[in-house]
């Protein structure tokens, strides 16, 4: 066995598959992130326990004060679509923490010296987050069911709602991937993410009807992406007009992806 090769002209021919390289590399890089969930249970516990606490808190602590007159059906059915979306927003911060940690540890240096696709580290990370979100979304449906959430429209509509949640979560993973690469260390990444996340999640229709908020806040709360996505998910869960809501939500997610995907990749190429 030899440690090195002295033939210097052959290796470039080793990849006649330039087109599939980004996908193969994303799978390789993503498997690394998934293994981390398996090996470091605290990562998964954080992303699962926390939303469960939110469910219990809003269902049993705050739920009682939410004006019933504004919601024509049980609060739990109003709450769960909000929880599904909120969970993916909070979970997406993991991409920022993970990537800034990799940046700090020198792992990204090695990756950038390898003949791998320049989008694969981010593609892998967001893919792993997507897989985690499938798991977390399924868990949240179960938890919701336990506290009284019921399928009111049908299983296909619920699955469509979940796809919407996953799409939104995937788009946010790219946002926070860019944040992680820009901040460069986990503490700053977390500090930078929270002020963005908090108003998006709490000044939204996720937990309370927007109409209960002061007028100046309603304008923001009704049109920001979390509310739009929650509205679409809620329409699919409890019934009501869906087409416009869903189209708007999909447009937000695709728009976020179109901006932050290239931005994150650009940032990855340049980050030092």
């Amino acid at each position, binding site marked *: *066995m*030899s*440690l*090195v*090769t*002295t*033939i*210097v002209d052959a*290796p*470039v021919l*080793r*990849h006649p598959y330039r087109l599939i*390289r980004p996908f*193969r*590399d994303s799978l*390789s*890089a993503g*498997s*690394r992130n998934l*293994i*981390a969930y398996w*090996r*470091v249970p605290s990562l998964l516990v954080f992303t699962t326990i926390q939303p469960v606490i939110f469910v219990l808190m809003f269902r049993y602590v705050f739920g009682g004060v939410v004006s019933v007159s504004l919601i024509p059906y049980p609060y739990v059915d109003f709450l769960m679509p909000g929880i599904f979306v909120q969970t993916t927003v909070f979970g997406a911060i993991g991409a920022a923490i993970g990537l800034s940690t990799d940046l700090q*540890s*020198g*792992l990204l*240096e*090695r*990756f*950038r*010296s*390898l*003949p*791998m696709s320049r989008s*694969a580290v981010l593609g892998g990370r967001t893919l792993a987050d997507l897989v985690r979100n499938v798991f977390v979304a399924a868990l949240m449906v179960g938890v919701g069911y336990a506290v009284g959430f019921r399928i009111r429209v049908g299983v296909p509509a619920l699955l469509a709602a979940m796809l919407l949640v996953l799409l939104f979560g995937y788009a946010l993973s790219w946002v926070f991937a860019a944040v992680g690469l820009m901040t460069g260390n986990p503490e700053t990444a977390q500090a930078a993410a929270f002020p963005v996340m908090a108003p998006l999640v709490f000044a939204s229709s996720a937990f309370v009807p927007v109409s209960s908020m002061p007028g100046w806040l309603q304008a923001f709360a009704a049109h920001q992406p979390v509310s739009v996505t929650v509205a679409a998910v809620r329409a699919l869960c409890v019934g009501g007009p869906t087409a416009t809501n869903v189209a708007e939500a999909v447009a937000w997610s695709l728009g976020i992806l179109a901006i932050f995907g290239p931005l994150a990749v650009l940032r990855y190429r340049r980050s*030092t």
Partner: protein
Amino acid sequence: MPVAIRVEGLVKHFGEVYAVDGVDFDVAPGTVFGLLGPNGSGKTTIVRILATILRPDAGRAEVLGRDVVHQADEVRYLIGLAGQFAAIDPNLTGAENLRLSGRLAQLPGRVAKERAYELLDRFQLSEAADRTARTYSGGMRRRLDVAAALVQRPAVVFLDEPTTGLDLHSRNELWEMIRELVAEGATVLLTTQYLEEADRLADRVAVMSMGKIIAADTPAALKAQLGNTVLEIRLKDEAEAVRVVQLLARATGVTADREETALRISSPDGTRVLLETVRSLNENGIAPTTLTVREPSLDDVFLSLTGQRTSAAPTEDAPEVGRARR
């Protein structure tokens, strides 16, 4: 003549700071080239440019005839990089880390797996293969990191301060592996803060200071220029130190540099100077507080080349074997 690495007029600045300020050098295939310098002298920046991680602001660099900017992807198939910090995933096992590196270096999965176990064996990590890297000692992590740089059998290997922070045993093992690499035909570019290390491993050494190469030669020639051995004598007071300087000048013909009560003599003929110094001190009834004989350190190189000390603490920074050698 074929060239493995060619660097021409390389410049890289970060804002106002010129990390690399007009550097030229060539490295012949199958040789070890040492970049020697203190922290912040620009060694790592050069490695990062050669490894396609950073783009230079001016000048150019080639690895085996491929431009590191315009043919970066081709260059990446040919190189292996082990940076200053062990670039391994602590949540993956040793074997998983190597397989991941192999797959990302575009080896077929089966080849990456075989290669991972070959390297684990070669780097004496077989027993720890299935443990997460989090549980590895510092020396094991560094070995795994170097192994990961070699999965794709790179023709050119960059090792950025590979032995910094390693204990003696781990360092000697790593040196042995670097020699094996070269014996098998690889070209190695190594950065180090230790003259000892450059001397042991490199065929040619470039000494860097503030982004520039201030000397480049074979280690033997550099050392000849510096004097092979450094003799340090500490005396009980300055008056005595001044007296000893004069005494030594007469008795042995060497010039000692005095800094308060400490004398430093650099000589290509260390054994003779040591004997004559001791005899001369003894004849005059002078007992020094300490007397040390050592190899020249990076600090001595700098003192000789620039007249300035490196910012780091001088002799303590040199590896311990520097004193014990010969």
